[in-house]
């Protein structure tokens, strides 16, 4: 267990403290989703679980990819692969702001010395057909988190409303640890026999992916995969709900949603390759949104989405 009264020493300690904090506050600490996503919101634990009436509380780290943000590891705070820390609680508790501030204290931000502000920032994800109201949270003028009350996801009104917290881990950790370049940030404890910096772990991959994202990724393949993912997503959802083999009702939301996630990431890759024109952009985003909507429609037809068989109380 880390001691929250002392300053954290590494990137991973900040993550561990957040995990411990939110576990103590009753969240299920999940693991990252095993697919390429653009943000923690795409994890089905957020997108799908924010739908329907079932209560939910989860926290997790999500590796996120934004191919266009790649800078070959040169930029002090821009990466094509980075970590988000995501918390989703449904219904949003009345003391969510206080819970959130507690998490900042847990990672060593002294509320008596810093200036924390909730600055209007309404969140919208055109690809997920989702929006919410909230703030970006500033610590001494720096955005350290996004705080959102989900109002709509996949075109569905959220009822009850989920409270979502997203921490940009690298930026937050750099601030807490007083590091100016992300690659210089200690990943593990600098006092250990084998100290590793963020750069030791990720500098090379940032270079490799930046080159691939911008110049090498085969756009024909990506375009074809996009079309395939789109088609397959629809096919999965069009399958009858009753499984002929087991004779049970199985709505395959998650497999379909995986295809939606794929399509979204493929779009991001195509965007980074610069093959999508301004006018086409909207069309692609609309195609992914249509998939997200279909998945949301299907999710509320499942038990986790609050569906009950006819005649059930």
């Amino acid at each position, binding site marked *: 267990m880390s001691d929250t009264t002392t300053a954290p020493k590494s990137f991973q300690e900040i993550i561990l403290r957040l995990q411990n904090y939110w576990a103590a506050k009753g969240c299920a600490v999940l693991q990252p989703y095993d697919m390429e996503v653009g943000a923690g919101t795409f994890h089905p634990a957020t997108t799908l679980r924010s739908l329907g009436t079932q209560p939910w509380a989860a926290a997790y780290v999500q590796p996120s990819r934004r191919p266009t943000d790649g800078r070959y590891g040169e930029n002090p705070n821009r990466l094509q692969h980075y970590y988000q820390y995501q918390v989703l609680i449904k219904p949003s*508790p009345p003391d969510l702001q206080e819970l959130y501030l507690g998490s900042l204290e847990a990672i060593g931000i002294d509320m008596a*010395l810093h*200036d924390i*502000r909730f*600055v209007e920032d*309404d969140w919208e994800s055109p690809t997920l057909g989702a929006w919410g109201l909230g703030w970006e949270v500033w610590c001494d003028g*720096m955005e350290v988190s996004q705080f959102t*009350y989900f109002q709509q996801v996949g075109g569905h009104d959220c009822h009850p409303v989920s409270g979502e917290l997203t921490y940009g881990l690298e930026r937050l950790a750099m601030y807490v640890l007083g590091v100016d370049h992300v690659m210089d940030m200690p990943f593990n404890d600098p006092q250990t026999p084998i100290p590793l910096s963020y750069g030791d772990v990720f500098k090379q991959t940032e270079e490799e992916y930046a080159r691939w994202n911008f110049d090498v990724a085969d756009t024909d393949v990506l375009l074809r995969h996009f079309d395939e993912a789109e088609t397959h997503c629809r096919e999965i959802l069009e399958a009858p709900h009753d499984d002929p083999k087991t004779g049970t009702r199985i709505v395959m939301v998650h497999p379909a949603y995986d295809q939606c996630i794929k399509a979204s990431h493929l779009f991001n890759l195509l965007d980074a390759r610069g093959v999508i024109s301004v006018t086409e952009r909207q069309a692609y985003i609309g195609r992914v949104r249509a998939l997200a909507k279909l998945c949301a429609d299907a999710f509320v037809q499942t038990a986790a989405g609050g569906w009950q068989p006819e005649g059930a109380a």
Partner: protein
Amino acid sequence: MPDLLIELFSEEIPARMQRRAAQDLKKMVTDGMVEAGLTYASAAEFSTPRRLTLTVEGVLANSPTTVEERKGPRADAPEKAIEGFLRGAGLTRDQLEERETPKGPVLFARIEKQGRSAAEIVAEVLEKTIRTFPWPKSMRWGAGSLRWVRPLHSILCILSDEAGAEVVPLEIEGIVAGDRTAGHRFMSPDRFSVVNFDDYTAKLKRAYVVLDPAERADVIWHDATNMAFASGLELVEDKGLLAEVAGLVEWPVVLMGRIADDFLDLPPEVLQTSMKEHQKFFSVRNPKTGRIERFITVANRETADNGATILAGNEKVLSARLADAKFFWENDLRVAKAGMEPWLEQLKNVTFHAKLGTQAERIDRIAALARVLAPTVGAHADQAERAARLAKADLSSEMVYEFPELQGLMGRYYIAAAGEDAAVAAAAEEHYSPLGPSDEVPTAPVSVAVALADKIDTLAGFWAIDEKPTGSKDPFALRRAALGVVRIVLENDTTLQLGDGIGNHIVELVRRWGARWRVYYLAGELEGRDHWQPAMIVVSEDTVIEEPFSSYETKKLFDAGELAWDEKGEKPLPKLPEICASLLSFFHDRLKVYLRDQGIRHDIIDACIAMEGNDDLTLLVKRARALSDALKTEDGENLIQGFKRANNILTQAEAADGVEYSYGADVKFAETDEERALFAALDQAEAQIEPALQQQDFATAMTALAGLRGPIDAFFEAVMINADNATVRRNRLNLLSRITKLCTSVADLTRIEG
């Protein structure tokens, strides 16, 4: 009489909404109270990031009991009628009273409305206010269904007098109104109760909350200016930012920080915009050099280290931001110094409007038009064209991508860096002006040429494709563009035949781009993919026919029946003369608004618009001013009466006789001195007016015209037009015709009202 105090305490309200929300709270609550008969002496509203507060003083303890008397049907009316009346009044038969009236016995109802307590009314009004509050955007939270801008946590609602405070009983979705509130989120978070407004503000201040946004703004402004002054610097005023920042803090603490030396060479506007947009910092300028050297940030708390940690954090964030800005600036300068070609090239891929082509195509049009306009405004044609070609290049720059509000200004820097003439560089910034009614208009000839060309191209284009503003919808700011043209022309005293300008430009537009306006997409399989292919086609019989297809391949496919016109969205376009007339009258409408603000009546403008040459706005306004001045004199005012009388008699006679009395008035048929005097006066006035009009000296013309007032009045006084003698009558009618002709040669006086 009790005072009412209401506080709605929530999570952080967006700064831009606070002021309006507090005003809405005041209006909705006080209106609701008054409607329920609960009057008050005064009310005031306040807001902080977490609360909307309303204080109402001198509230009636109870609404008065009112009695309303309503007249019903006659006592002997059918039962159905009486029942209907009872239903409408919500009464029973025994509550009606029968009275004798001149029309017989009539039933009267006395409806007494019992007064209600202030608490009861306030509870009702406040609940309705909260449930129907007009937030620009509102949300739900938790499992509830109440909507508010952000989660609403508590309601303070008390009525207080000398005896103490009474909580207004009210509960909305589990939130029970009370007499408690909380202090500053971090510095004094405990909740406490209050007994009245003074107690409330005093306790809030002790709990590190300044309730009044004006007071917070004052504190910020005062501390910031002092802090800057103490360092020999000055604060750059920004009222919008001040109001916003005052809405982000409950306990403002002003801190001044340094901008790292690396960034001091950035253009001051870039520093200022980056600091304001991203960080909500004020800029602090060195008055000697004009450079922005420091910043001021406003924290929401005091700290043991006097803000040192906060300031260090803010400086760090700013450095990261400015490193981006510097990166953009340096990259942009490289492109600029090499001639900006890649930027212009990039504009070929930026659509301005589907039917009006890309930005690059638009620039071509503007450049051609600027060239044409240049001599009129005293600019060199080559320079005007060059300026127009470069004026929008900065739209492709990284800096303008990041800060769109710097468009034009960055263009000026970059064009100057490219070694172009200063007048060409200035046009990049100035050609967007004027942006608002109070914004200055460009005066430098090159800027004027480009500004006019830019606006006329926009207007002509949207008119040609028939996308004019309707009602409140004006997505392309065409009203602003037209007012811009009006102001540039008038304030520079430019002589410009807009009609020709518009007409020729539209013809040019149609010749080059009109092809896209009607059927502009062909559907079909092209290059193996679903594709929409721009096609060229006839617009209308008035306009030029171009090759109907963009490419030979397209035509082959069309001929083979593999392509078909897309019928969707097709609508017949107006013809050229209609377009020009409609656009000219749009300019005239803007002109009327503009001149009305300067005290010139709309009928005076109408009288001048009806004259020839009305597309020369400068001429039009000269005429209108002269007419307006003349009408302010007693002679002028009376002349109008005389003119109208002459015109009426003449029109009636012409209608009755079926002839036109238009010439041949001869002094030899004059019978009276007044008649002869009028002849003489007209001769004299004509001799003055005609040359004056030729020289566009409307003042002289109007004065000469007004001088006719005396002779005309005397003429009508002494002479009967419809004389028995037909010759005399005809002569007098012809004389009237001379009056009206002379008068309307100056302006169409028939349009003057009154």
